[in-house]
C-alpha cells in the first residue's frame, strides 16, 4: 500500500528528509547515554570490523541491512544494491514469538545486538499512548500466530548436551561465538545459560545470540534452525543442514534457560505429555554404564544380549511406533513413561512387531512378543485402576524389515493406537520464560491490526495477506546529514529512531549522498567481497590471505573420528582461486545445498540457497578466471585406453593414490582423504592437472605429496614416465571411474594365516586377547590366544586360525577376531590369587603389571609350539600348550610348571568361568555344557567350583612343595 497523504498519522510518521534539524550537543550526550556496551556484536558492527577497507560500499550495504528502501523510494537502477533486507515474517507462517517479548521489544527497542536493526517507532509518543499501541500490536500479532506456550517439550540433559556439541562443532560458533572452551566441551557439563567463552573473537566481529528463552519455544526455534529462510527469507543465517533431531537438540540447548531447574535448586520435574523414547544401535564396545542400555539388556529376549551403543537419539513422542529408528537393522527402541487410564477396567495391550517386542505395565510383562520373527501381533490383558501407570515398551530388529505398532482396547474402547493424550513422562517442561501472563483480547487485536497498517510495519514484516507498504518519499541527493531524518540521534516525531553509532551514521550518510551521483558501479571484487562478508563466508574460509577462523576459533574446528588428516581434515578449504578450481555446476551445488565431499570434517558447509549460489558462482568465475580464462573441460572424450593407464597409475602398483584417497564405497589403505570418484565432477581439468604437479602451490601446507616433482614423474614405467600423458590418463580414468571399476590393489580379500606343518604365531591386536596378544595356530586346527598384558590364556578356538588382512592392509588399525569356530573364552583378569576359603573369595580385579605379573618371553619347541614364560610375584611360570589330535577334533593339553623363590600357600589358579560348571568325573569339569576340562595335579588338594549369583568359577590349587608345583590341564570341546 501507498501512504495516503491525508492520513494524519502518515505526516506524523514520515516526513520528507528535507527537514533541517539542528544538532545539539545534549542530543549527542543523550544518545551516548543509551549507546550500548560493546559486548554484543551484530551484522553492522561485524561489517565495520571486518570490512572497513570497503569504504562507501560498506555504507551502501548498511542501507540494505537496515532496510532503508523498504520505506524510502530509490532509483530502480540501484535496487540490486540497496534492496531492503526486511525483517522476519510474522503471523502463522512466521516466527512464533511470545506476546510479552514482542511488546517488550516495541516498548524498549534494543540498542545492541541484531535486534537493533528494528527501529524505535514510538520514541516521540507519550508514554500511555505508546503503551496502548504496543499492546494492541502485540494482541494483533498474537492472534495470528501459534501459541508459543503450547509447546510440550520436556527438558532432557542428554539432548541438550548433544545440542551443545552440535552448536560447537557444525559451525554455529564461527559466527555466534563459543559458550565453553574446547576442554570443557569434552565434559558432560552444560554451560550456564548465557555463558560466554573467554577465548572468543572480539564480540564486534561476531553476531551475538540474544537471550532467547523468553522469546520462543523449543519447537519454534527448531523450525527456524532447520530452515532459517522459511520464516526469515533474507536472513543471513544459512541452513546448517540439521535434521529434525539435531535441530531440536540445538534448540533445546540454546533454550536451556527455560529448564532453570536443571541449573539451580528449583526442581520442577513433573508429568508432561508424551512418552520418552531412546534409540539404540547394536555394536561393539557398548557402554554398559548407560542406564538405558542396562534397561534394554535387562529386558532383552534370551540370555545373551548383543553389545549395544549408548542411545544414538532420544526424545518425546506422542505415539509408540518404529518411526524413530535411524536405520532398519540392528537397532532397538525403548519407550518409557506413564499411561493415564481414565477409568477402572480390564485393558488389553497389543504389539505388532518385526522383530521382537515386549510391553510392561506397572513393571509387569503384559505382552511378550519376543524373538526374531516377521511381523506378528501378540496381546495381553490386565485390570487397571483409573490414574497413571508406568508403561515400558522395548523393541528391536536384527535384520530385514522393521515394524512396531502398539495398540490397546478397554472398557467402551475399541482396539486402537494408544491415545496420545494418555501418554506422559516425567520431565521438566520447557516453556518460554515470562512471568507476565497474557490473555488474548480480540478487540485489542483488531486495533493492533489497524496500527500495524498505519505504522507500515508490513514494509519490513510480511504478515499473511497484508501487502507491504512503501513510502513515497525520495531520498534527496546531497542533502543528507547525520543531523536530521531517521539518521539523527534523536529524530523528529514520526520518524523511526535507529540505534546507530556515529561512524555508522557517517557511513550511511556518505553512501546516501553518493548514491545518486552518477553511481559508480561496484567492481566485481567489491561485490564479491561484500557478498562474502554479508554471508560471513570469511568466518570459516580464507580467501586471498583474508578471513578464515582465528587461532582460537580454529580450536572448535574438528575432525570426526581420528582421521589423521591434519588441518585439512578439520579447517574448511581456502577459497583463493576457487573460481578456477571448481566447476561452476559443483560450486553452485556447494553454495546452494551445502554439498560436501569431506565427510571427516565436523564443521558443515551450510546451504545458502539458489539465489546466493548463482550470484556467488558468477562472481567467483568472473574474478578468478581473469586474466587467463580457463580452457574449461576439454571437449575431448575420455579415452578408454587412456583410462586403463589411469587406473594403473591410481592403483597400488602405480602412484598409489589409494594409499590415502577413498574411492566411493571403498576406504583407502590409509587415511580417508577425498573420494577419488568425485574429482572429475567437481574439479576443473586445468586446475586438477596443475595441482597434481605442484599441490603446495595451490593448497599451501597440504599433505598431498607431488608425484611429479618439478614436472618429472617418479614413475618411469607407465607411459614412459611422460608427465602430461600420465596426468591426462588419470583424469580420463577419474572421469569414467565408478565403484564397479576400482583401482588396482584397493579391494583386499581375506588373508588366512595357516599353520601347515608346524605351529604359527601371530602377535597383534586380537579381539578378546588385548593389544599385546600372542595368537598361536596349531596344525591340528586348534588355536590359542595368550594375553601378554594380563599374562593369561585368553581364548581357544577350532578351525581356521586368523585373518591377517586387517593388519596387513593400510595402517593395520583395529582388533581382529579369531577366524575359526567354537570360540571358548577363558577367564578375564588375573590368573592367580590367594585365598583360604576359595569357595567364597572375591577374585581380585588387578592384573598385569599392576598386580606384579611380568612377561618373560617364550621358547619354541621343534614344532614351533610356544612355552610361555612369565612371573607372578617371585614365582616363575612356564605355560606350555600342545594340540592333541582326536578322532573328530583336536584338543589342548597344557603343562604348567611353577617355580617360586618365595613360599606361597593358599594359591589358586582360575581355570574357567561360566554360567554353569559341573563335575564331569574325577577332577574333570563341564563348562557351560561346551568344554570339558580335566586336571592332573601333584597334590592332594582338589579343584573347587566357586558359585556366585551371576557366574561360576573353577579354581585349581597350586600347591608349592619346595617352591615347585605343576598342573596338567586338558581341554576338550
Amino acid at each position, binding site marked *: 500500500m501507498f501512504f495516503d497523504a491525508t492520513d494524519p498519522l502518515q505526516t506524523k510518521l514520515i516526513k520528507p528528509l528535507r527537514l533541517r534539524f539542528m544538532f545539539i550537543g545534549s542530543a549527542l550526550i543523550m544518545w551516548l547515554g543509551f549507546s550500548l556496551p560493546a559486548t554484543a556484536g551484530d551484522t553492522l558492527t561485524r561489517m565495520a570490523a571486518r570490512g572497513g577497507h570497503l569504504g562507501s560500499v560498506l555504507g551502501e550495504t548498511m542501507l540494505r541491512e537496515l532496510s532503508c528502501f523498504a520505506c524510502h523510494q530509490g532509483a530502480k537502477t540501484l535496487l540490486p544494491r540497496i534492496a531492503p533486507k526486511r525483517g522476519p515474517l510474522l503471523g502463522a507462517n512466521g516466527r512464533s514469538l511470545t506476546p510479552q517479548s514482542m511488546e517488550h521489544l516495541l516498548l524498549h527497542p534494543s540498542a545492541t545486538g541484531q535486534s537493533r536493526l528494528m527501529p524505535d517507532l514510538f520514541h516521540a509518543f507519550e508514554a500511555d499512548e505508546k503503551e496502548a499501541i504496543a499492546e494492541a500490536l502485540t494482541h494483533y500479532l498474537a492472534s495470528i500466530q501459534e501459541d508459543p506456550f503450547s509447546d510440550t517439550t520436556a527438558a532432557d540433559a542428554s539432548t541438550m548436551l548433544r545440542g551443545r556439541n552440535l552448536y560447537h562443532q557444525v559451525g554455529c560458533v564461527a559466527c555466534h561465538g563459543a559458550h565453553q572452551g574446547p576442554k570443557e566441551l569434552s565434559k558432560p557439563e552444560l554451560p550456564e545459560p548465557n555463558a560466554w567463552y573467554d577465548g572468543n573473537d572480539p564480540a564486534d566481529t561476531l553476531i551475538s545470540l540474544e537471550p532467547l528463552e523468553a522469546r520462543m519455544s523449543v519447537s519454534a526455534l527448531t523450525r527456524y534452525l532447520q530452515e532459517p529462510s522459511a520464516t526469515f527469507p533474507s536472513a543471513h543465517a544459512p541452513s546448517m543442514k540439521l535434521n529434525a533431531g539435531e535441530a531440536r537438540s540445538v534448540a533445546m540447548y540454546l533454550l536451556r534457560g527455560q529448564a532453570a531447574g536443571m541449573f539451580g535448586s528449583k526442581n520442577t520435574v513433573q508429568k508432561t505429555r508424551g512418552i520418552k523414547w531412546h534409540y539404540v544401535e547394536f555394536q561393539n564396545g557398548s557402554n554398559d554404564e548407560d542406564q538405558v542400555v542396562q534397561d534394554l539388556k535387562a529386558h532383552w529376549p534370551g540370555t545373551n544380549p548383543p553389545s549395544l551403543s549408548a542411545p544414538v537419539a532420544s526424545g518425546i513422542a506422542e505415539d509408540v511406533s518404529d518411526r524413530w529408528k535411524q536405520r532398519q537393522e540392528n537397532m532397538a527402541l525403548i519407550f518409557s513413561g506413564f499411561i493415564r487410564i481414565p477409568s477402572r477396567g480390564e485393558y488389553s495391550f497389543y504389539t505388532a512387531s518385526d522383530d521382537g517386542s515386549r510391553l510392561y505395565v506397572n513393571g509387569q510383562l503384559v505382552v511378550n512378543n519376543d524373538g526374531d520373527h516377521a511381523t506378528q501381533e501378540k496381546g495381553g490383558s490386565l485390570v487397571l485402576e483409573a490414574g497413571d501407570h508406568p508403561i515400558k515398551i522395548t523393541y528391536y530388529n536384527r535384520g530385514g524389515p522393521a515394524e512396531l505398532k502398539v495398540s490397546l482396547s478397554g472398557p467402551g474402547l475399541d482396539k486402537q493406537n494408544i491415545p496420545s493424550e494418555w501418554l506422559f513422562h516425567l520431565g521438566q517442561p520447557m516453556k518460554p520464560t515470562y512471568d507476565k501472563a497474557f490473555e488474548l483480547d480480540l478487540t485489542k487485536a483488531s486495533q493492533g491490526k489497524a496500527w500495524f497498517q498505519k505504522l507500515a510495519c508490513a514494509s519490513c514484516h510480511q504478515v499473511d495477506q497484508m501487502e507491504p507498504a512503501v513510502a513515497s518519499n525520495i531520498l534527496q541527493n546531497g542533502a543528507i546529514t547525520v543531523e536530521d531524518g531517521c539518521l539523527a540521534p534523536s529524530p523528529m516525531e514520526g520518524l523511526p529512531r535507529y540505534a546507530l553509532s556515529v561512524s555508522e551514521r557517517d557511513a550511511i550518510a556518505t553512501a546516501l549522498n553518493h548514491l545518486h551521483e552518477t553511481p559508480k558501479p561496484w567492481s566485481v571484487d567489491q561485490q564479491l567481497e561484500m557478498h562474502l562478508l554479508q554471508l560471513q563466508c570469511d568466518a570459516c574460509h580464507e580467501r586471498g590471505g583474508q578471513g578464515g577462523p582465528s587461532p582460537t576459533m580454529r580450536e572448535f574446528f574438528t575432525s570426526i573420528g581420528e582421521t589423521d588428516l591434519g588441518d585439512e581434515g578439520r579447517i574448511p578449504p581456502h577459497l583463493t582461486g576457487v573460481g578456477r578450481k571448481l566447476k561452476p555446476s559443483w560450486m553452485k551445488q556447494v553454495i546452494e545445498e551445502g554439498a560436501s565431499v569431506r565427510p571427516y570434517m565436523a564443521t558443515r558447509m551450510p546451504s545458502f540457497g539458489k539465489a546466493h549460489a548463482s550470484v556467488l558462482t558468477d562472481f567467483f568465475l568472473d574474478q578468478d578466471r581473469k586474466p587467463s580464462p580457463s580452457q574449461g573441460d576439454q571437449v575431448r572424450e575420455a579415452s578408454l585406453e587412456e583410462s586403463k593407464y589411469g587406473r594403473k597409475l591410481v592403483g*597400488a602398483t602405480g*602412484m598409489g593414490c589409494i594409499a*590415502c584417497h577413498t574411492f566411493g564405497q571403498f576406504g583407502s589403505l590409509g587415511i580417508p582423504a577425498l573420494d577419488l570418484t568425485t574429482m572429475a565432477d567437481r574439479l576443473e581439468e586445468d586446475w586438477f592437472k596443475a595441482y597434481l604437479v605442484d599441490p603446495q602451490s595451490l593448497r599451501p601446507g597440504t599433505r598431498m605429496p607431488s608425484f611429479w616433482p618439478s614436472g618429472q614423474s617418479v614413475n618411469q614405467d607407465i607411459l614412459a614416465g611422460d608427465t602430461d600423458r600420465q596426468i591426462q590418463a588419470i583424469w580420463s580414468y577419474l572421469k569414467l571411474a565408478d565403484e564397479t571399476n576400482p583401482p588396482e590393489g584397493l579391494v583386499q580379500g581375506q588373508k588366512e594365516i595357516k599353520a601347515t606343518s608346524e605351529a*604359527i604365531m601371530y602377535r597383534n591386536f586380537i579381539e578378546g586377547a588385548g593389544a599385546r596378544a600372542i595368537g598361536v595356530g596349531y596344525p591340528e586346527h586348534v588355536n590359542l590366544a595368550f594375553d601378554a598384558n594380563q599374562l593369561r590364556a585368553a581364548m581357544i578356538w577350532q578351525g581356521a586360525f586368523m585373518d591377517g588382512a586387517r593388519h596387513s592392509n593400510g595402517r*593395520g588399525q583395529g582388533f581382529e577376531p579369531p577366524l575359526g569356530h567354537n570360540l571358548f573364552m577363558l577367564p578375564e583378569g588375573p590368573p592367580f590369587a590367594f585365598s583360604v576359603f576359595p569357595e567364597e573369595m572375591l577374585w581380585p580385579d588387578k592384573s598385569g603389571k599392576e598386580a606384579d605379573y*611380568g612377561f618373560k618371553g617364550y621358547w619354541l619347541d621343534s614344532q614351533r609350539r610356544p612355552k610361555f614364560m612369565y612371573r607372578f610375584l617371585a614365582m616363575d611360570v612356564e605355560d606350555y600348550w600342545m594340540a592333541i589330535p582326536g578322532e573328530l577334533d583336536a584338543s589342548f593339553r597344557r603343562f604348567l610348571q611353577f617355580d617360586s623363590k618365595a613360599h606361597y600357600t593358599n594359591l589358586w589358579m582360575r581355570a574357567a568361568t561360566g554360567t554353569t560348571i559341573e563335575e564331569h568325573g574325577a577332577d574333570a569339569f563341564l563348562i557351560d555344557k561346551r568344554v570339558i576340562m580335566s586336571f592332573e595335579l601333584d597334590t592332594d588338594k582338589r579343584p573347587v567350583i566357586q558359585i556366585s549369583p551371576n557366574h561360576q568359577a573353577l579354581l585349581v590349587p597350586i600347591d608349592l612343595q619346595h617352591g615347585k608345583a605343576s598342573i596338567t590341564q586338558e581341554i576338550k570341546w
Partner: protein
Amino acid sequence: MNPSELAWQASVMALCCYLASSWILGAQPQSEVFYKTETLPIPDGVVLEAGGLQWMGDDTLAVSTRLGDIYMVQGALETDLANIQFQPFASGLHEVLGLARQGDWLYCIQRCELTRMKDEDGDGRADLFETVSDGWGITGDYHEYAFSSKFDADGSIWVVLCLTGSFTSEIDYRGWCLRIDAEGNMIPTCSGIRSPGGIGMNPLGDMFYTDNQGVWNGTCGLKHLKPGGFMGNPSGNRWYELTNAMGPRPQEPTSGSRMHLEADKIPELVPTAVYFPYNKMGQSASGIICDQTEGGFGPFQGQMLVCDQTHSTVMRVDLEQVNGVYQGACFPFLSGYDSGNLSVEFAPDGSLFVGGTDRGWGARGGKPYALQRTRWTGETPFEIHSMKALPQGFELTFTQPVDPESARQTESYQLQSYTYIYQSSYGSPEVDGSQPAITAIEVSDDGLKVRLIIDQLQIGHVHELKCVGIQSAQDAHKLINNQAYYTLNEIPRELL
C-alpha cells in the same frame, strides 16, 4: 598453415629442444654418476616392508618387517644380486621397527616390548625369545609404534614411542624416549615425542630421532634426545608422575608461540636440531644413519643421513653444537627410491641399504615395499658439503673448489629465513619470513670455503640458502643440489 606443415614445425621445435637439453645434460653430470642404486630381488611370498636392518657378520643382513617377520639375507653385498638368499629367522612378531645385535642375541623392538632372541638348536631359526623390557603401555591404537636404536657406548638401547593416536598419550610413556640398559632396567630419558620415524647416533654417540609434522611440530625435524630433555610435545607429560628420573614436569608450552621463545622459558625444552621444511625437503622423516664409512660412501664422513618416507629420498644432515645446543643444515641428497624409505643402514663395505614401505602412508616410489643398495661410484659429486654458523653469517664448505668469481657474486645466493608456529594444532605454515641481506662474501684460497656475512641472522629460524650461481672451478658445473636449510637455534659467540 596446413596440418602437415604444423606437424613439421612441431618436430623441428622438438628437435631443437632436444638438442638444447642434451647439450646442457652433456655438460652437467647427473647424480647416477656418483651414486648407483640397485634393487634387491625379493622372493615371492616375502612381504619385505623393512622396518629394521642389522648386519650379522660380514655377509648376513637381518631384515625385520612391519608384518613381524625377520629374515636373514645372504649375498646382499655380491656384485650380482641375483643369487641373494632369504632365510626366515622369526615370524609373528608385532611390527618390528628396529634391530640390534649383541653376541648371539638379536635384539628387536616390538610395539609392546624390547625382545631378544637367539637360535639355540642351530636350525637357523630363533627359538628363545626373551622380554628385555616392557615398561611402557599399549592400548591397541595403530599409532602406538616403537622404534629402537643400536647399542650406545654404555650398552643401552634407546626406544622412542609414538603417542596413542595423533594427539594423546593414553597409556604409560607414550610420547617418551626410554633407555634400556644392559641389565634390562628402563630409564625414562626424554619426554615430548609425537610421532617418531627413526632413531640413530651421531659420531659422538649422542642420540637423535626424527619427529613428524603434527601437533606441536610445525614441520618434520631431527631432534636431539638429550637425557632429561623435553622434545616439545606436551601430550605425554602426564607420565612424569611415574618417574623420578626426569625431575619435575616441565612448564606447559604456550600454544601459538615459537619454539625458541618457549625454550627460553622452559629449560627442559630441547629445540629441534634441524627442521626439514615441509614439502621442500620431505613430508615424513624416518630412518637415521651416520656415515662412518671413512670415505667409503663419498666425502660425507660423520654426517647424518635421514630418510623421507613420502618423498622416497635420503637427505643429508650436517650437525654442529653451538653454545651447547645442536643445530645444523640439511641438504637434498639421494632420491628415486622404489618405495617409502623407512629403515637405513650401512654395510661393512660402505654400501648403504635402504628399506621402504608405502602401506598406509603413500610414497613417491610407488612400490609397496623395497630393499635397495646404494653404492658410491668413487666420483665426488659437486655439493655443498657443510654449512656452519658464524657469529655474523655462515661458512659453506664445498666438496670441490668453487669458481671464485661465481662465489663472490651476491646474486649467486638466494637467502630467506622463516620459522614455524609452535602450537597445539596440526603443523604450521612457514611464518615470520625475512630476507637477510648478504653484506660480504669471502672465498678461501683453495676455493673450498665461502663465508657469507649476513645482516641480521634470525634466531630460531630456518635459513634457506640457494646457491643458484655457484660453479665449480674445474668444469664450471652447477651444484648437484644447490639448497641448504640451516636451523639457527643459537648464534656462535664472537671469538675474542
